[in-house]
């Protein structure tokens, strides 16, 4: 069920009305859990059982970890995580693994016959397995108490605003909210509506508009010239941000309507002046998850420089694979890992050379932002193309390594950069002028009405699925 659809509006309206009509907190949680399973069943009801199994695994492991002595606790933790990872690997990576093994053995002269499975990838599996792992690990670390109520864990893992594409929410963050009764606060409703509106404009208007530019070109790369490929790359650079940030704002806004706070997932990432800063602003819930549950357990910043670089590259490589079972995602992850290593080395070098140049001047920051964004954009080519070969062809054409004859399109790069600049400048600045309370109300609500009318008129009627639904 797409967030930008009649079905979702009807679903949300119904669940919202029922939720706030129910007087008891327990009943509300049951309602949200059942609604979340119905939401998931609208895509494929069979996989509700898989999600239920993942939930039961986390719930049982949580209890066992809290009740057993330390050595057994580790075993339970490993078993629980192993089950989640096995499910993820089976559905997401098995065919990728087998086809690569077969190809490698074929190169060596063998002809093995390993079965390729005809399975579909359950929507949101990468997200809800991460939620389950987060719950169990946080209990193991003593950061969160094991739940006595199964429905609380089920709601945490399945809560529909974040079920399909995040944000990935820590158990430590959300479980205390689930346990307590969520009061109805009108101020929270206003925030929720505003976030929903912003997400709607991001996704339904801008991202889908940019998809109309990028998609046809990436689908027929051989038919367009190098400049068109550049336009498509810049369009995708904008599309993926507005698409995913739009989804995240809508998810956070929807949760707010039910009284739940979700952490921020994007903080204007295209104003980052380094790759490290980029990952503090982009898909923050994933990057912090990878940091806490992967990078730090690998050793983090401890040890020698090479060990830190190794940890960064492994983390980003697995982050790339998390997005999809394909070599282009691996390369995307490696490019980000390499970018982070270079950034780390440069920071160390600057500190070593002179503390005076540690503070960036305005112009130096602009240069740093441009370099960072060019690197991010380069990596998006690998993310968007269907294969590494396609991506290198696009990259080679754009930077002029080889000619790429084909049709031209009207260049839109400046317009796309302009809209990103408007968003990042006005969104992250302190531009709001103080007005009287009465005027603030008038401007807020009539402004919401204006944006809604303009957005509905400007959006393409046939909405594209959110990009991150495939992960």
């Amino acid at each position, binding site marked *: 069920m797409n967030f930008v659809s009649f079905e979702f509006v009807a679903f949300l309206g119904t669940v919202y009305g029922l939720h706030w009509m129910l007087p008891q907190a327990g009943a509300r949680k049951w309602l949200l859990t059942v609604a979340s399973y119905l939401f998931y069943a609208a895509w494929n009801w069979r996989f509700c059982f898989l999600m239920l199994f993942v939930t039961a695994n986390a719930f049982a492991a949580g209890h066992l970890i809290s009740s057993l002595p330390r050595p057994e606790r580790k075993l339970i933790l490993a078993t629980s995580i192993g089950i989640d990872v096995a499910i993820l690997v089976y559905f997401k990576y098995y065919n990728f693994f087998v086809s690569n093994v077969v190809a490698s053995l074929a190169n060596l002269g063998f002809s093995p016959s390993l079965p390729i499975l005809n399975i579909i990838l359950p929507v949101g599996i990468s997200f809800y397995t991460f939620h389950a792992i987060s719950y169990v690990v946080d209990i193991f670390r003593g950061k969160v108490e094991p739940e006595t109520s199964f429905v609380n864990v089920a709601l945490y893992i399945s809560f529909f605003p974040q079920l399909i594409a995040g944000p990935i929410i820590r158990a430590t963050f959300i479980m205390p909210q689930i346990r307590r009764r969520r009061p109805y606060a009108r101020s929270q409703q206003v925030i929720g509506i505003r976030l929903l509106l912003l997400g709607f404009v991001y996704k339904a208007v801008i991202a889908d508009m940019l998809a109309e530019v990028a998609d046809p070109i990436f689908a027929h790369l051989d038919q367009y010239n190098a400049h068109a490929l550049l336009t498509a790359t810049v369009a995708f650079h904008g599309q993926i941000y507005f698409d995913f940030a739009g989804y995240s704002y809508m998810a956070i806004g929807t949760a707010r309507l039910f009284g739940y706070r979700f952490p921020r997932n994007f903080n204007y990432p295209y104003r980052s002046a380094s790759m490290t800063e980029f990952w503090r602003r982009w898909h923050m819930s994933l990057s912090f998850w990878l940091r806490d549950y992967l990078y730090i357990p690998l050793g983090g910043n401890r040890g020698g420089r090479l060990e830190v670089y190794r940890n960064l590259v492994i983390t980003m490589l697995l982050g790339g694979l998390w997005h999809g079972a394909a070599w282009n995602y691996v390369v995307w992850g490696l490019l980000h890992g390499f970018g982070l290593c270079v950034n780390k080395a440069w920071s160390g070098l600057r500190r070593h050379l002179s503390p005076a140049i540690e503070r960036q001047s305005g112009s130096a920051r602009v240069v740093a932002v441009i370099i960072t964004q060019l690197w991010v954009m380069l990596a998006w080519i690998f993310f968007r193309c269907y294969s590494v070969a396609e991506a290198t062809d696009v990259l080679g054409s754009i930077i002029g390594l080889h000619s790429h004859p084909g049709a031209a399109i009207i260049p839109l790069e400046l317009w796309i950069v302009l809209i990103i600049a408007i968003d990042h400048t006005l969104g992250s600045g302190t531009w709001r*002028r103080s007005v009287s309370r009465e005027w603030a109300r008038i401007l807020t609500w009539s*402004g919401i009405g204006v944006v809604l009318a303009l957005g509905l*008129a400007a959006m393409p009627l046939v909405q594209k699925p959110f990009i991150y639904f495939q992960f």
Partner: protein
Amino acid sequence: MTKTAYLLVLAGLMVGICHLLPRSLPGRSWTASLFLVIGFILAQGALSVAFTVLGLVPRGPFHEALEHLTDYEGDRPVALLVGSSFTQAGIDPEALGESLGTSGRSVAVLPLAIAGAPHLERLYYLKEYLSTAKRKPQIVLFEVAGGYDSSPLYQLQQMQFTDRMIAMMDGYSAWWAFRWLFSTDAVSLTTSVVLGGEILAHLGLHVGHIGFLWNSTRADRPAGHDPSSSPPTLHFSDDEVASLIDQAAETRDLKADWPQNVPSNWMAAFLEEEMSTLQRHGVDRFAFYSVPSMQGANVAYARRFCAAMSKFTCIVGEDPQLLAGLRHGTDWYDFDHLQGDGRDLFTKWLGDRLVEQGLLP
């Protein structure tokens, strides 16, 4: 792509407004709702003005057809064909015009006929055509087809929430859609409720201009309409065609779910509305025709329709001589759509009948 640039600027404006909205306490719910509605209506008004000033019209097959039709400003009298894919496939307008011309009545035949166009959509664009045509038609020929006449909302269900169905569902179309819904016994209560909701939803999307900026184009932009385009060739064997044509000629019954009184009360009222719309624009000659079909129910419907509309010229495509010429598999794209030689034969035959009737100016 130029339009995308303009829309990106508009999107930038929207993002800017979103970010600049002051942080406010909610206040009373009704005042918040009131201001929201006021903002929405003001923006809708501004959009309506902008659409008029910019001359934007919905993009789609009808826009392309209208572009072609309204441009005609020759000296010849105009005959307008109003129909669906049956007409689009089965009649060659150029050949029909020539056929009429050889009889000493030089006529420009303009087809307002698009595949899958229900009556509501035809009337919507007929009005648009009449308001912008450089030369008004002297005669309008309406296609008769049992499926379209009996289930005027079928296409709405088939193409629901498409740009095309939203574009045609103004208040007037919605009124006629509801009139049919309340007058028919052919749909269950549940289907009626669902259909009623869908009509209202389409109306809401139309009135709210939803998706309009994206799916619109300047009315004066060349559209590249090709009225002679025809579907790809499928083949029946000659024996199959002969057998089907014979069966169709013998059929007397309509489909069970079609209204048995022909035309239905709704259809009669709708035709009256169409004709009075045309009369307001000075058009007062009407005729009806049916394209040959290998489905007996369609032929039986056309026969009954023409019998009931005795005040008008009504031509059923089932003349024995015509059918004898259409007994080749290559004449048919499918059961209801002619092609190739079949199309040429029927066009010539229809031209001769029209000349015989002396309807043309």
